[in-house]
């Protein structure tokens, strides 16, 4: 009876996960979807605590340990999630993902320990006493969980700048060798003498960590959101192996669901940037190519503009469109940007923002950034809307954006970003670009826009420039 109710709890859990994920992929229902999945998770967790029975009909014990673990985890988790700055979200997700991976690896370790204690006095190998499927499930959980854990920690470190990009020739070959080592040791353990398998298992786990580190290390820091999404699907698969191990349906379905959805999401993310997953993992552009293409400057002429002129130009315009990009985010200039918008608004200028979906370093980066600065939602135009508006816009102010306004994406089939939809700012009457230099952006390519007659460059750090601009306009 008790177990029957638990089955139903798990069924509810699985269904809420599917529903939740489905709703999460639609802006109108996303928030509700998250809550529904959370509710199902709660039911599955408390169902397990109170209704689970082992094969011999006993319930769980060690409640004190379990509840203290739950309480400690909840408090830390909630605080961390509430405190984190909006722009550090990917770091946070990466860290949480690492925790999940570690959890899966630990479970496998404990299960291995069970098996080991039973068979360590066996004079033969595991292969003689443990079914292969059982051993396979345990070590797959450990390895995948371990890779996900170590990789996530590195991704976290890269995102908050503690760990620098690091790559050398032959890195990819080394990685393959380490991966091969992990798999061979894992296989070897099964057939080795039962009394020492614990050492081999430990080596497997540790080398999985090493592989996780090496896997993420060479990938460009700016590509971390993609990597996190990939590691996210790894953890899902590790959780699914846990589900196999305990013949637990909700773990199995939840894990597989995330594993599949995470893999697709990773590919969708790459597609939104018009790159392939391979390209991200091997890290060809953003690192090497960047330097290569900077060389072949087209050497056109560009026009500079002073803060003073910019202020006049904007204050007397009818309609201004602001295009925020990665530079705005790193300069932390969202608040002063909002200030600029308000002042212009007071002067009767119609101001809105053109938001490119992959502007910045994570999808939706600009939305959260401007939301943090209290910019009102109806001022944020999506790409399609914005492209309709540019025709009637007097001044476009580009703040630290580059690739997302690069016309090469439309015109130059040889360009690495060819095919990516862009903001067509050239349709406006005039364009003012703020960045610190003529250096290229993320994709490492030249931007023709800067050399067009209607474009003027306004060099300087986005935050400083905006502050000066605001005071200039006030003084007009």
């Amino acid at each position, binding site marked *: 009876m008790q177990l029957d109710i638990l089955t139903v709890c798990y069924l509810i859990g699985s269904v809420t996960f*599917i529903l*939740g*994920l489905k709703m*999460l992929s639609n*802006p*109108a229902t*996303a*928030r509700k979807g*998250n*809550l529904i999945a959370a509710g199902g*998770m709660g039911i*599955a967790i408390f169902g*397990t605590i109170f209704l689970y029975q082992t094969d011999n009909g006993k*319930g*769980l014990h060690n409640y004190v*340990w*379990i509840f203290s*673990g739950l309480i400690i*985890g909840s408090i*830390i*988790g909630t605080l961390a*999630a509430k405190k984190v700055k*909006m722009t550090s*979200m*990917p770091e946070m*997700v990466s*860290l*949480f*993902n690492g*925790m*999940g991976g570690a*959890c899966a690896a*630990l*479970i496998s370790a*404990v299960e291995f320990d069970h098996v080991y204690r039973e068979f360590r006095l066996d004079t033969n190998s595991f292969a003689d006493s443990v079914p292969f499927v059982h051993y396979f499930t345990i070590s797959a959980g450990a390895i995948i969980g371990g890779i996900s854990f170590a990789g996530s920690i590195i991704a976290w470190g890269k995102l908050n700048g503690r760990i620098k990009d690091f790559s050398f020739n032959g890195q990819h070959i080394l990685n393959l060798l380490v991966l091969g080592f992990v798999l061979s040791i894992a296989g070897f353990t099964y057939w080795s003498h039962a009394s020492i398998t614990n050492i081999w298992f430990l080596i497997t786990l540790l080398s999985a960590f090493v592989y996780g580190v090496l896997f993420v290390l060479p990938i460009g820091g700016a590509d971390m959101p993609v990597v996190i999404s990939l590691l*996210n699907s790894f*953890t*899902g698969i590790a*959780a699914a192996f*846990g*589900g196999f191990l*305990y013949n*637990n349906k*909700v*773990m199995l379905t939840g894990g*597989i*669901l*995330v594993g*599949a*959805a995470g893999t*697709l*999401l990773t590919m*969708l993310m790459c597609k939104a940037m018009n790159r392939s997953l391979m390209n991200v993992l091997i890290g060809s552009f953003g690192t090497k190519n960047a330097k290569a293409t900077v060389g072949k400057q087209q050497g056109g002429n560009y026009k500079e503009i002073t803060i003073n002129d910019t202020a006049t130009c904007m204050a007397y315009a009818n309609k201004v469109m602001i295009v925020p990009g990665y530079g705005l985010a790193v300069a932390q200039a969202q608040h002063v940007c909002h200030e600029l918008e308000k002042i212009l608004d007071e002067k009767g200028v119609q101001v809105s923002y053109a938001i490119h979906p992959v502007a910045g370093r994570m*999808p*939706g980066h600009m*939305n*959260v950034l401007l*939301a943090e600065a209290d910019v009102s*939602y*109806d001022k944020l135009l999506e790409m399609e809307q914005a492209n309709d508006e540019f025709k009637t816009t007097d001044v476009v102010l580009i703040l630290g954006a580059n690739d997302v306004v690069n016309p090469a994406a439309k015109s130059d089939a040889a360009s690495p970003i060819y095919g990516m939809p862009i903001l067509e700012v050239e349709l406006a009457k005039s364009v003012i670009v703020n960045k610190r230099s003529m250096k290229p952006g993320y994709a490492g390519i030249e931007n023709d826009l800067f050399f067009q007659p209607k474009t003027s460059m306004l060099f300087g750090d986005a935050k400083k420039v905006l502050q000066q601009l605001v005071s200039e306009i006030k003084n007009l």
Partner: protein
Amino acid sequence: MQNFLQFITENQQMIYVVILMIFLGIEVIGRVPSVLHTPLMSGANAIHGVVIIGAIIVMGKSNDDNYLALILGFLSVVLGTLNVVGGFVVTDRMLEMFKKKK
């Protein structure tokens, strides 16, 4: 080969569930707009925190004198909870920022 086929038959229900779930995972998020990529990733991240159930079972089954299992189990409960709770809370916060357009 025969072993493998036999494994499939014995676990066919499980295999069906896995395959259908893979299809579902792919279908369900097929149309997500790019601005939602980050919250979706974060929500999916919270869902795989379901691994905590395994941690609870490990913890709740281990003997009182098996300290290794107790400590590792406790650690995994804490880590799993972090994943679940932190994951859902952070996703909710993010989505709050995306409120409805228009």
